[in-house]
């Protein structure tokens, strides 16, 4: 193959390395004003009045409140519970109450500080453990956004009981480009939104409801990272920019400052996972019961889907004859949590992998041996009754172990490192990750794409966005390969909802595998259309082009067709949860200072089953970038909040992500066990690198210091605290 399995440079690469790529904040429409948001200062309160500070000069400033909304005051997503602007009551400290716009950004921010809101406080509920059944009602009858229970098999009567409780914290996506959006008027009295976003059609859906009409289109600017954080939140900032644009009668740009972005936008759901398992004397799993609680925050957003995916991964990649899983995501008066790479699975997989280590510890066996014994294999059946095929678990394990045989790199010690108090450890973790939407999701979504032949070039029309992962390059490779032409003859059209079909959201490790398959089919149809038009039976694209007698554009469309053999019962949570799974194994080597608890990563080796690497350079980029986000979550990244749920670590100086010197050498191996439903065998890989590394870090620290850490993040303070606990227990 000429275009598949080759690390061709990314199509947007030259624009990005020359500084010419245009992000939303690089646009300056004529007459554009700047918007700012007035946010609540209480976690739960009745709004008594909203006033302008009479001492402030309000010339050239517009203010928007809920009363200015022409359509419905809702950010439409799964449910309609979240308003665009608080009306009468606020339910978290960062809820938007009013908006202002002014000719300059500083003036808009200044004006926002002079909007006075009077509140009557209401009781506040922040602790998710207190949410279910609380007299303080936030959502529905019992504050539960979604509860799911799945059972399979009969409980065994014998076996050794192993119990553990595992906690993970929030995580901030920290895309380096803050959220941003520009709204401007169209000639037909409609609006165009252009911004940094993953899912243009989500924004479109939300804006139609807000505006009460459909004269609106959404355009993606070059987007500086998303990782889930720009899945649903852009609908909010787009709605705000749209309202300000209508009121001001001119284009309005909203760019969040970093502190506002960290405080107000969605985070990874924190979770508590309790696991009780029964194991045979040889370490084989007999029963696995997990109970999961996630904090959804004040509004539903994507929480039901997050708990679902979390639950479906809560056994880890291990076979077990009896499984009972129950999970709930509950409401609190906290800023809503939402999508972040992995989408619930990193939380439960951290717990599952730590639990496998616990089983090994309690049985006096090696963690590796316990994993080898229980790892899923072809033909095994999951908790939902899905029979697994294309299983790469054992292959990635052995591949990673082989790669980790290489001698460790000598890493230059930073000041204060490498003394007598430093200990070394190695940890391993496995992960599996369902590719694409859960269950009937893809059938329901009906992801579409089109291919247009114009001026001898092929234009791919898709709503699946490029957010750094390389989607556009992958799509051009797929079309070029399918038609046997060079890459420079294929382009991806601008992601404007007025021009491209809805391919479904750019989430869920689905873009290459699912949308890529749709794009591949549009190319096949293009050849067939050319053959039909010309009467030629040639398969050669240029021969077919030469045979054309007309020069008119030709377009082929396709809608995703799920494998008809996949069956899913949404109500019973049974059947084929995912078309296929990706598999990954990570091995981390680290040093940790037993005096300070500081962890220094030396090397991270991973092997991942990607089905087929369309572009190995891009695939490795996804895997390494995702792994580092997990390593950051493991030891550095802590969302510190006060007692009303306001994020205090709201700066890059206080929410710490890894730098180049905090990061290990990465050794990344690709394993290819093809999935027949993906283009050229490709599986989804966007999320799986996030799933395993944190547990591997915990295992490595355990090996180094003999201390058991079951809570993320494992900051130096927490490592030292756990060592002190272990010491005091030992002294009794």
């Amino acid at each position, binding site marked *: 193959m000429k275009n598949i399995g080759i690390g061709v440079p990314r199509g947007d690469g030259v624009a990005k*390395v020359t500084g010419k790529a245009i992000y939303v904040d690089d646009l300056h429409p004529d007459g554009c004003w700047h918007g700012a948001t007035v946010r609540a200062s209480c976690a739960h309160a009745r709004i008594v009045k909203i006033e302008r500070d009479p001492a402030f000069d309000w010339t050239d400033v517009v203010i928007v409140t809920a009363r200015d909304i022409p359509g419905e005051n809702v950010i439409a997503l799964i449910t309609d519970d979240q308003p665009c602007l608080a009306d009468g009551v606020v339910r978290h400290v960062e809820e938007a109450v009013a908006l202002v716009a002014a000719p300059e950004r500083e003036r808009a921010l200044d004006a926002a500080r002079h909007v006075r809101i009077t509140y009557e406080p209401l009781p506040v509920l922040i602790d998710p453990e207190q949410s279910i059944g609380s007299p303080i009602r936030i959502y529905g009858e019992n504050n539960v956004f979604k509860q799911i229970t799945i059972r399979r098999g009969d409980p065994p009567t014998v076996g050794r009981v192993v119990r553990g409780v595992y906690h993970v914290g929030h995580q901030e996506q920290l895309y380096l480009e803050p959220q941003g959006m520009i709204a401007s008027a169209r000639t037909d009295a409609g609006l165009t939104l252009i911004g940094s976003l993953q899912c243009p059609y989500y924004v479109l859906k939300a804006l139609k409801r807000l505006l009460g009409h459909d004269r609106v289109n959404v355009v993606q600017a070059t987007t500086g990272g*998303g990782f889930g954080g720009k899945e649903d939140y852009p609908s909010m900032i787009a709605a705000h920019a749209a309202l300000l644009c209508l009121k001001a009668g001119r284009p309005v740009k909203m760019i969040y400052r970093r502190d506002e972005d960290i405080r107000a936008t969605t985070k990874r759901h924190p979770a508590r996972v309790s696991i009780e398992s029964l194991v045979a004397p040889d370490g084989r799993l007999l029963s696995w019961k997990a109970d999961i609680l996630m904090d959804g925050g004040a509004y539903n957003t994507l929480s039901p889907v997050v708990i679902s995916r979390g639950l479906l991964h809560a056994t880890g990649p291990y076979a077990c004859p009896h499984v009972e899983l129950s999970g709930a995501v509950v409401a609190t008066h906290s800023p809503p949590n939402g999508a972040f790479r992995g989408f619930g699975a990193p939380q439960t997989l951290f717990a599952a992998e730590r639990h496998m280590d616990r089983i090994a510890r309690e049985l006096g066996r090696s963690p590796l041996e316990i994993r080898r014994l229980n790892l899923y294999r072809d033909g095994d059946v999951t908790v939902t009754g899905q029979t697994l095929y294309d299983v790469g678990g054992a292959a990635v394990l052995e591949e990673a172990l082989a790669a980790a045989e290489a001698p460790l790199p000598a890493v230059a010690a930073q000041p204060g490192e490498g003394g007598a108090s430093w200990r070394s450890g190695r940890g391993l973790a496995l992960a599996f990750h369902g590719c694409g939407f859960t269950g009937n999701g893809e059938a329901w979504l009906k992801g579409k794409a089109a291919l247009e032949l114009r001026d001898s070039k092929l234009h791919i029309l898709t709503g699946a966005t490029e957010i750094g992962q390389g989607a556009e390059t992958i799509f051009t490779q797929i079309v070029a390969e399918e038609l046997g032409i060079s890459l420079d003859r294929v382009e991806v059209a601008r992601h404007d909802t007025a021009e491209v079909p809805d391919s479904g959201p750019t989430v869920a490790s689905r873009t290459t595998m699912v949308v890529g398959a749709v794009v591949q089919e549009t190319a096949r149809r293009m050849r067939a259309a050319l053959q039909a038009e010309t009467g030629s039976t040639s398969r050669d694209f240029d021969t077919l082009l030469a045979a054309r007698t007309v020069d008119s554009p030709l377009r082929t469309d396709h809608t995703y067709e799920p494998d008809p053999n996949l069956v899913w019962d949404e109500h019973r949570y049974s059947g084929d949860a995912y078309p296929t799974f990706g598999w990954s194994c990570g091995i981390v080597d680290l040093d940790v200072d037993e005096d300070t608890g500081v962890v220094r990563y030396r090397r991270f080796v991973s092997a991942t089953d990607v089905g087929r690497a369309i572009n190995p350079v891009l695939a490795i980029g996804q895997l390494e970038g995702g792994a580092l986000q997990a390593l950051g979550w493991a030891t550095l990244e802590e969302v510190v909040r006060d007692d009303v749920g306001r994020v205090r670590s709201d700066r890059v100086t206080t929410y710490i992500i890894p730098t180049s010197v905090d*990061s290990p050498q*990465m050794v990344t191996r690709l394993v290819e066990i093809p999935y027949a439903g993906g283009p050229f065998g490709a599986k989804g890989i966007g999320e799986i690198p996030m799933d395993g590394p944190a547990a591997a870090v915990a295992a490595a620290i355990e090996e180094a210091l003999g201390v058991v850490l079951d809570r993320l993040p494992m900051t130096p303070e927490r490592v030292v605290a756990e060592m002190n606990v272990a010491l005091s227990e030992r002294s009794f």
Partner: protein
Amino acid sequence: MHIEFSVNGERREVDLPPMTRLLDALREHLDLTGAKEGCGEGECGACSVILDGEVVCSCLVPVVQVAGASVRTVEGLARAGELDSIQASFLKHGAAQCGICTPGFLVAARDLLDRNPHPTPDQARDALAGNLCRCTGYQAIVDAVVHAEAVRE
């Protein structure tokens, strides 16, 4: 205040309040939007430029401070339409993903390579420690910097 300085070898002038951030002067008044704002407080390095041979965060530099100075931005790396070796190396090694941090990394890497054309991986990591990337995991960036001269040769 009237301020003159050199940007990418060209003499430029602006009339701005002296405490205007160099970043804003470049982005909003000189139409050079390559440098990006990621944090606004000198932590992320997305706004890095080379000021008289030193990498600085342009969000922390008041424009008055660059009067008479020489500034190099990402737009000044490619010469006569030909990519600089570090730009070509970034493409080859997949060191740019979302691209928002890339301009800052490129000028920081160019500054390192001007002083040390063959850095070790550790030297590259040290030199780039002031720039944050959330996409790549840094290995591709380190590879791109270490092998930049090989791309040229």
